[in-house]
């Protein structure tokens, strides 16, 4: 019998008992829809966290200067400058897994345009900073190392500052802004980056060459670097190695004997990001377990109904055998029936799951992400369950003796 015919016979048998078929697939429907919905929501949440962390910078390490201890009271990280400009150069030149390293000096200052003012964060850094944060330009150009060397009075603006000083969508290139009464020529504006996970607006900043920053905005630490060092590793796999290399290098340079605390601290954003995804991962594992259980239960339901069906249709099986069905034809027919039940359940489950995810996305404002591979895996898995649990009843049907089967009451 052809595959098409087998499928037709199977579907017809299932449709003959619509209610029963539907109830049988319910286990699989529930399992698959739960998985599809939860994976869509989980992936959406994960993607959002990832996007937020990658906005900070790719493969990013932040080196913060150390703490002070005055009379037993510990200052926080960054309360005392312990990092030097030579430390920065050493990180840049001595560690092979460092792609970029840039200083980040910050000050809060009022910035004036012709007719507006805005208080924002002014960052002094080098051109590598833009690469570390993978921050593309929106208009104009970035400042260069020549600007850093010459301490030119140029500035690159974040979008929020552009909006506040020049109005939305204005092109600020060529305009002059004043920071602490020093005129800076705007050479470029940065594309919008959005907010950090904790609500900080990345675009609310003015970026100037670090040399200019030290001369005109906030100077006076001499050899010490009055900010943090941002380090970008060569790739995701080298981030933690870079972290330990930087730590070793700085401990050497600061002549810290073994056993003492670091006088600086390193924040590994990849680690923070993965920690914040730990919850998502636990949820995903839990979901997989729920899915496995409900598919198992669904499979048992299918097996149960198929066994009932084989018994009910014993005479039909006997007749089919008498008119020439081979055991393989009978087995295939019942297998296809179980498979059709399971796959139908899987497909209904996918539809319900996508619907549920969509509903949750629209009513709770959650971000959801539909992954076609999850859908295929879910349907494929239900098919597998159908074949797995359908095999025994189908095999039993195929082993019936036509003579006894025909006499079965």
């Amino acid at each position, binding site marked *: *019998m*052809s595959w098409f*015919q087998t499928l037709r*016979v199977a579907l017809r048998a299932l449709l*003959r008992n619509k209610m029963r078929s539907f109830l049988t697939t319910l286990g699989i429907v529930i399992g698959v829809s739960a998985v599809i919905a939860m994976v869509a929501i989980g992936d959406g949440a994960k993607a959002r966290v990832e996007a937020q962390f990658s906005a900070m910078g790719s493969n990013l390490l932040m080196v913060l200067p150390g703490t002070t201890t005055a009379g037993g009271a510990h200052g926080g990280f960054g309360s005392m400058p312990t990092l030097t400009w030579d430390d920065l150069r050493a990180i840049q030149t001595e560690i092979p897994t460092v792609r970029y390293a840039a200083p980040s000096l910050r000050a809060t200052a009022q910035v004036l345009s012709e007719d507006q003012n805005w208080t924002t964060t002014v960052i002094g850094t080098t051109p590598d900073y833009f690469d570390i944060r993978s921050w593309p330009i929106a208009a104009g150009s970035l400042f260069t190392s020549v600007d850093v060397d010459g301490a030119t009075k140029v500035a690159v603006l974040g979008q929020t500052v552009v909006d506040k000083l020049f109005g939305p969508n204005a092109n600020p290139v060529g305009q002059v802004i004043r920071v602490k009464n020093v005129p800076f020529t705007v050479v470029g504006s940065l594309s919008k980056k959005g907010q950090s996970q904790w609500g900080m607006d990345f675009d609310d900043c003015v970026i100037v060459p670090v040399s200019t920053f030290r001369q005109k905005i906030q100077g006076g630490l001499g050899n010490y670097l009055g900010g943090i060092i941002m380090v970008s590793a060569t790739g995701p796999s080298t981030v933690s190695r870079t972290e330990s290399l930087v730590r070793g290098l700085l401990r050497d340079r600061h002549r810290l004997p073994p056993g003492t605390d670091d006088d600086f601290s390193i924040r590994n954003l990849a680690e923070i990001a993965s920690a914040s995804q730990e919850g998502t991962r636990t949820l995903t594992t839990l979901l997989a377990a729920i899915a496995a259980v409900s598919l198992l239960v669904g499979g048992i339901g299918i097996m149960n109904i198929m066994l009932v069906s084989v018994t009910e249709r014993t*005479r*039909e099986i*006997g*007749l*089919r*055998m*008498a*008119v*020439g*069905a*081979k*055991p*393989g*034809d009978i087995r295939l027919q019942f297998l296809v029936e179980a498979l059709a039940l399971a796959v139908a359940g899987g497909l209904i489950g996918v539809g319900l799951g996508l619907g549920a995810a969509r509903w949750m996305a629209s009513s709770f404002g959650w971000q959801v992400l539909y992954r076609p591979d999850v859908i295929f895996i879910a349907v494929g898995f239900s098919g597998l369950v159908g074949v797995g649990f359908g095999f025994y009843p189908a095999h039993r049907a195929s082993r019936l003796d*036509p*003579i006894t089967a*025909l006499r079965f009451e």
Partner: protein
Amino acid sequence: MDQAPLIRLEDVTKTYRMGDVEVHALRGVSLSVELGEFTAVMGASGSGKSTLMNILGCLDRPTTGRYLLDGQEVSHLGTEALAGIRNRTIGFVFQSFNLLPRTSALENVELPLLYAGAGAVDRHARAAASLAQVGLADRADHFPNQMSGGQQQRVAIARALVTRPRVILADEPTGNLDSRTSVEVMALFQELGRSGITVVLVTHEPDIAQYASRVVTMRDGRVRSDVRRAARRAEPLPPGEAAAAEEALP
């Protein structure tokens, strides 16, 4: 004999084991049935006639002895091969019709063709022709529960005929029918015999057996008597139903 018999049993025995007890259902049966012969097998229950039918129908294999069907030794064939022979060479008619419920007459008749691997167009055409042959062309889309017993049995006969078999094996085909419809069915079998199809019929009713041209009587697993004689011609068709059938034909 210028032609090999269609069915040839040579000293066939069948022994079942039920627990520790051996049941000798057939104790050495030799039988030849010629092409186009209409044979009735009679006997009390337990005489071995059902076992004989199962073996003739390739549903079961003899314990010893040989069975040649249409010149082919089939007693040692495997399950698959026997299924193929049942499909091509044999048509079955049962006492309880064994039509698939909620399935149209046409599709019931098509059933053996599904396993013969026929294409859809071919299947429909042959099933329709087969239904026409039993006078039910107008009932093709009726379900079994919409038809009388006689009509259902005729659908079953159409199903048996659809693969153009050499043999029709009918097991008490009139057991569930009233006497008028029984005669109708017997007339149909006689017609098949005339067209060269061999019919073997199991019955316990002498009334029915008289329409056959040969009566084999079984007892205790052996052939007790084997009589060839002129068959009574079945001429039943009650005028009402015949007219209805003809009106409906295009």
